């Protein structure tokens, strides 16, 4: 278990919407995480907490997210707000062209009326259609599974937007102002959730996960390639579904209670 994983995964184990984590809770979770690390005895040396800037992303890691739909609160959009703030996404009061890297989707089961709500963002597929169709290679997948757009070689053809099954990509329809240095945006190029790669590379977790951990605690981030990580253990214990699993894209984002 890495320091990062500990940080991320503890961050997602909050105690309900609006609840603050107690010192006791923190210690308990830390101990559990440490136990997970030490029990198999093989993960003492794992990827470093923060990846040095000159070091390539490791293929031994696959960053992923688990969404616990049963905890995701109706009417709560903390993750959406945090994402927009973190990445400098501003509304122009034009909903059809405004960027939304993450959005809350409400589902009503037509058969019985059961309603649930969940966030949908780039699913960081292992076999991303957006990467397949991109003519220039601007859409790419890092060795650690994070799917990104190279803004320098994106020509704005939007073929990736046609190909993405999750409607996760946005086209920048206007001049961008107030950009964040860690999240460059450019008029005429395509963008989507980066899994807050700038935070992840520094040992942190995505802004949405952090925000959710202070409330519902429905989001968990970690290394899904490591069977001993908390996220993998959670998935192994309770199971998880993928959106459009029939497409066989092996998404990095999984949903519990979907």
């Amino acid at each position, binding site marked *: 278990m890495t320091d990062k994983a500990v940080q991320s995964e503890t961050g997602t184990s909050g105690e309900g919407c609006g609840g603050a984590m107690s010192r006791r809770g923190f210690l308990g979770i830390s101990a559990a995480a440490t136990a997970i690390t030490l029990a198999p005895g093989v993960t003492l040396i794992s990827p470093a907490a923060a990846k040095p800037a000159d070091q390539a992303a490791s293929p031994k890691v696959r960053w992923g997210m688990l969404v616990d739909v049963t905890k995701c609160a109706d009417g709560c959009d903390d993750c959406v707000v945090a994402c927009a703030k973190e990445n400098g996404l501003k509304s122009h009061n034009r909903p*059809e062209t405004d960027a939304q890297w993450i959005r809350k989707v409400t589902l009503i089961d037509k058969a019985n009326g059961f309603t649930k709500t969940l966030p949908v963002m780039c699913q960081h597929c292992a076999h991303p*259609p957006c990467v397949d169709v991109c003519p220039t290679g601007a859409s790419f997948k890092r060795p650690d599974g994070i799917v990104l757009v190279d803004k320098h070689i994106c*020509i*704005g053809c939007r073929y990736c937007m046609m190909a993405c099954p999750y409607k996760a990509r946005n086209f920048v329809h206007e001049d961008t102002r107030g950009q964040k240095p860690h999240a460059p945006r450019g008029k005429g190029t395509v963008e989507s959730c980066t899994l807050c790669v700038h935070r992840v590379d520094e040992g942190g977790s995505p802004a949405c996960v952090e925000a959710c951990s202070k409330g519902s605690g429905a989001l968990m981030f970690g290394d899904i390639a490591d069977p001993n990580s908390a996220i993998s253990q959670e998935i192994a214990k309770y199971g998880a579904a993928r959106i459009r699993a029939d497409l066989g894209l092996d998404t990095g984002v999984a949903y519990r209670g979907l």
Partner: protein
Amino acid sequence: MTKKIALTQVEGRSSGWYGLLVLFGTVILAGLGSTWYMEHNGHWVTGMNNQIVWGMPHVFAVFLIVAASGALNVASISSVFGRNVYKPLAPLSALLSISLLAGGLAVLVLDLGRPDRLIVAMTHYNFKSIFAWNIYLYTGFFVIVGVYMWMMLEKKMNRHTKTAGLVAFLWRLALTTGTGSIFGFLVARQAYDAAIMAPMFIIMSFAYGLAIFILVIKFSYTWLGRPIGAYVCLRQRNLLRVFLAAMLYFVAVYHLTNLYATEHHGVERFILLEGGIFTALFWIGQIMIGGIIPLVLMFHPATSESRIALRIAAFMVIIGGICQMYVTIIGGQAYPLVLFPGMEVSSSFFDGQINSYTPTLAEIVLGVSGIAIALVLVLIVVKFLKILPASLADSAFDPNYVEPVIHPTDDEAPETA
């Protein structure tokens, strides 16, 4: 009996020639102005958005690219399938195909989010992308059809015409397969993700390209005062009939296949019954105007021999083709992605909703400018190269003709136009 049908230039000094040049030039300038407007402000000033990401420019661009391949029909039939009667028209067929492709690609490039990065598209390739393959297919088409024209027009090279024609024929099949596959390979979209889209686009290209060819012949020969005989018209009519019938067959199979699969009932219901403008454009535009009525015109005893009816039919096929592209491209995006089958879905990002699109003037002008680019290229090239047969009269196009020889003579005086 071997007749020589001279290919001649047009003089290109008449007021009519300059008038057309000014007309097409003005439309092209308007198209460039539209691009500047869209690129300067960003695409929010268009009808396109995060739901409908490809709009009116793509309707025109894909139509022109598909038609480009089809415009090569006449040349292919002459060189590959040995129908010598088409030989004198083959150079115009090749020129029109190159010009239409140039027009379509120009629109496609000018609508990019970053058209200034065209050089990036030419230097960075992802070979798994059908778009990247198409960049090769398109540039290869220019080169191959260009060489093919050279073989046809240069007497010394005539013996290579058949080989060049065969390569061009195979290439254009690959090219339209590539264009159809842009949609066919999109696994997530309900309206696409169908292997039949590639052959369907090929047969559509045959029809659209021939229809444009028929009208270009008509207007250029009327304008030049050169005769067109019934024989050429009837041959083209026969071809167009076959292509239209085949196109309707493919459209029927595509929809029947979808209708058989329950998961596609939603999108079929949308396109065929409840899609508003898309349903109207499908039934009235694509099927009636673009298929049934032209077929009736070309088969009914009262009109089947009429050249005016043929031209009306050709014009209707073009209108139907643009409607088809609108239904395929915009309609395919208007129907929402199905992320959660069986669920009623809603969000602030228009999940689960039929997406709306209202094309703006700028987009339409940019699209139409692609047609102007194609036509202005033809207008200029026929001035400088001997492309147009001196006559399409029946006397020159005798059905008993064995082997007409293209003979671009230097001593032939260009006709005044």
